[in-house]
């Protein structure tokens, strides 16, 4: 299976894969400097396993970001309006000083 293919890699390639996989999230967030980012890009171009992990992470993020919106049980327009209307209606020309006797 492809999942176990890392075990078949040479030790050099294996350690490179491990390093790249540790850096993938920083790479996605743009936290790597240009040299490190270029090294990750170069490795992804030739390593199917790391490429798959990278693709899955990107897909996961896309799935989170594109989750559909849920409908609340009610419409909030009236409740919000009722709560803000007293403030909105408070205009300086409506203000009266408190009566004193």
């Amino acid at each position, binding site marked *: 299976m492809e999942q176990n293919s890392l075990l078949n890699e040479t030790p050099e390639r294996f350690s490179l894969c491990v390093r790249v996989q540790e850096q993938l999230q920083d790479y996605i967030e743009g936290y790597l400097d240009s040299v490190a980012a270029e090294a990750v890009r170069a490795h992804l171009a030739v390593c199917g396993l790391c490429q798959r992990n990278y*693709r899955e992470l990107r*897909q*996961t993020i896309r799935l989170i970001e594109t*989750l559909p919106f849920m409908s*609340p049980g009610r419409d*909030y327009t009236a409740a919000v309006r009722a709560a803000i209307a007293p*403030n909105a209606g408070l205009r300086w020309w409506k203000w009266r000083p408190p009566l004193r006797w």
Partner: protein
Amino acid sequence: MDSMTDAALVRRCLRGDLNCYDVLVRRYQRQVYSLLYRMLGSVDDAEDLVQDTFIRAYNALHSFRQDASFLTWLYKIASNLGIDRMRARKSKAAASLEEEIESGREPADSERQTSPEAAAVRNCVSDVVHHEIMMLPERYRRVVLLRHVSDMTIEEIAAELNLPTGTVKTHLFRAREMLRERLRPVLEMESHGTEQPA
């Protein structure tokens, strides 16, 4: 009025036209509700805070800078309210729940109502994704939502949660790894779908 841009509606709200604020509430209540429900995992809390979010936003409307989108700005207000509610709940929670949250322990198998595979058969992909997000430990879930739904930067999240940036990164990265693992059947299904020749 429904076709007006957010910026135009906000300008008219600031001049006292409340009908324009009604349009903004109708336009974004689903988005705000979805974020809060997914953060808090409770319909009651989410419904409570949707209203508070729009009231708070109205009272701060003069401070809205039009360089960000109105929805992003709303999300920040909703996120802050959600974080406050989580803190309040934590302080009230029973010791066992507190331990669960702090240890980041995953819900027991019995709490996982369906496996991703089974859910994938019955429901659409988004239901599975939603389900798996809800199953994340709270500290991971809130960070992933703040980053990918509220679109906050890691630094902004760290400031809001009073956590070191490194901790936020760790939580975010672990959350994404957990989701990647749990969503593998969905990801594979999607990959096969996209790999098929046109």
